[in-house]
């Protein structure tokens, strides 16, 4: 048995043990869905960071910088700055006014059944999108690691899917939180080590390192990778960059699996502290993507990476070149753990939303008919969400950059979720029609624009749909986010719902003071 495989199995054994331990401790809905609301600020901060530093951040950004230099670093910047939207606008009101899901906040003022049904649909869509990217990353990674063992990309994708379902089905939120914490610590440690090795290669001279970045051999010519414009070129480059920026900055605050993290802490103050913790961890990590990405560009070069596993394998291949097979196995195990943990987090938010919002509140009018039914429905949903994303990841195949794929999930979240969250917290006139219009318009427009964009439509065999792209931008944010806001505003303006308006006072007081907020278990 090879070293990479052994390290994998070890990690999986440890995390399953944690899951088993957590499963014995968690009973009841608040425990399963929100870890009993007893997670502390720094623990939640690390868990948020763990949820966020997905395959997209580690494998994806390293790859996109290795291939397209500076333009790839824009992902790193946007993904950190995005947390200011979370911190300033949504984290505290959400903790104060909600229970388990994003839709709880909407349901306070609005008619709960249609709003929850729509929010649940949007949550499932965003989570599935995000998860496809993780599955693609996992597939390429495992296929590379087990090269020669006969396990293919498709087999690897299915294997990861099954493991993830096991985590969520048996452990719930507490197990997922602890898996995130362990993985975040490992990921940061691995990234620091890899960064040091890159600098050692350049004799610990930043000057030498940056000099090398300005002379990268790629495709037979020398290119300055520190200059913008390798990915985002005229005539649409600037607009595409701004569109991506909008999706990143406003998408994080609409990501269901990040938002549910704020329900695992005792109060709004702890939610705030955990965001700040997460920002320092995530920021430090993203600054180090400079070393991972540009290190892979200068030391390996894109031609080598393309021939040895593809764009998403830049960071693991860099580890192999700098420190050999054992370090390669170590970095790969971390990447694998990262994916597993993120997928578990995504599945739990998607299945929570379905069980809590759709099943209990929409179909059964907010009552559990039998104790434990909600948790059981969540477990069944986890199986289905896993199966759908495995299917789509296999269909897409291993060539898509995973940071780019996740960027699309952010665009959907920013367009469908953020407008209605912001309006329902801050706008007295907002109502049910506005929420439904906003979510529907954001969801449909972002999805349609992605399908007719240059990444899906094109004139050669690498594209899923043949034909000239109907929409010129890679990322739909600049069109679909304003559309989401506009539709929410129009829907609310064209209808009248006195009840929603009269309940604004309750929303405002709850969101700002924490009066009547869900309390931690055991207090």
């Amino acid at each position: 048995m090879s070293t990479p495989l052994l390290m994998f199995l070890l990690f999986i054994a440890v995390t399953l043990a944690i899951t088993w331990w957590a499963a014995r401790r968690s009973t009841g809905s608040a425990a399963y869905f929100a870890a009993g609301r007893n997670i502390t600020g720094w623990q939640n901060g690390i868990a948020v960071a763990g949820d966020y530093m997905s395959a997209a951040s580690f494998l994806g950004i390293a790859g996109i910088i290795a291939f397209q230099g500076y333009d790839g670093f824009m992902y790193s910047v946007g993904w950190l700055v995005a947390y200011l939207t979370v911190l300033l606008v949504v984290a505290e009101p959400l903790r104060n006014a909600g229970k388990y899901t994003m839709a709880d906040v909407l349901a306070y003022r609005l008619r709960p059944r249609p709003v929850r049904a729509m929010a649940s649909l949007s949550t499932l869509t965003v989570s599935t999108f995000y998860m496809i990217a993780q599955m693609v990353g996992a597939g390429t990674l495992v296929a590379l690691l087990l090269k020669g063992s006969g396990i293919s990309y498709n087999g690897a994708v299915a294997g990861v899917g099954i493991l993830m379902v096991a985590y969520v089905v048996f452990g719930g939120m507490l197990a997922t939180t602890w898996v995130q914490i362990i993985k975040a610590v490992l990921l940061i440690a691995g990234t620091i080590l890899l960064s040091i090795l890159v600098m050692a290669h350049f004799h610990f001279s930043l000057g030498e390192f940056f000099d090398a970045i300005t002379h990268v051999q790629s495709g037979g010519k020398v290119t300055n990778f520190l200059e913008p414009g390798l990915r985002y070129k005229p005539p649409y480059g600037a607009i595409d960059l701004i569109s991506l920026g909008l999706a990143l900055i406003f998408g994080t605050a609409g990501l269901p699996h990040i938002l549910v993290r704020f329900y695992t802490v005792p109060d709004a103050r702890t939610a705030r502290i955990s965001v700040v913790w997460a920002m320092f961890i995530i920021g430090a990590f993203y600054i180090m993507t400079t070393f991972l990405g540009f290190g892979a560009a200068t030391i390996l070069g894109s031609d080598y990476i393309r021939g040895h596993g593809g764009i998403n394998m830049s960071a693991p291949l860099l580890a192999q070149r700098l420190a050999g097979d054992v370090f390669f196995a170590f970095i790969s195990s971390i990447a694998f753990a990262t994916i597993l943990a993120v997928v578990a987090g995504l599945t739990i938010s998607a299945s929570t939303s379905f069980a809590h919002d759709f099943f209990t509140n929409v179909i059964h009018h907010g009552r559990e008919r039998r104790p434990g039914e909600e948790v059981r429905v969540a477990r069944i949903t986890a199986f289905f969400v896993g199966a759908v994303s495995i299917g789509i990841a296999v269909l897409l195949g291993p060539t898509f950059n995973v940071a780019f794929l996740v960027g699309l999930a952010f665009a959907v979240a920013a367009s469908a979720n953020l407008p209605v969250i912001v309006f329902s917290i801050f706008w007295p006139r907002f109502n049910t029609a506005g929420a439904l219009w906003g979510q529907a318009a954001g969801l449909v427009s972002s999805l349609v624009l992605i399908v007719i964009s240059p990444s899906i439509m094109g004139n050669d065999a690498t594209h899923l749909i043949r034909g000239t792209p109907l929409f010129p931008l890679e990322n739909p944010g600049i069109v679909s986010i304003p559309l989401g806001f506009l539709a929410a505003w129009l829907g609310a303006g064209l209808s009248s719902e006195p009840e929603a308006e009269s309940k604004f006072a309750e929303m405002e007081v709850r969101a700002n003071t924490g009066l009547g907020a869900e309390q931690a278990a055991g207090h």
Partner: protein
Amino acid sequence: MASPIPAPDWQRIARLPEFRELIAAKRRFIVPAFVFFCAYYFALPALVGWAPALMRRRVIGPVNLAYLYALSQFFMAWMVAILYTRAAARFDGIVKELLSRIQKD
């Protein structure tokens, strides 16, 4: 945190001068902070896209303005987060007073 009060009178609390002051104080910090960070952030893709010559200018050895401005975003985000944490401690104080007043009534 406040102990659970049976059905608080939300409308009345929402009209209390202390509560309006809390909302106003939060707005006075959050709105300018939000506008500032958005302007600072979106200047990056705008400059990179529309003023590439300026952004290619080398500042420290081979390191250009584009990279330095991108790097500065991290420190900007951390600064805003720290400033907000300090402001929010003040808001927490106002909330505490407000809640104790409501319970006395």
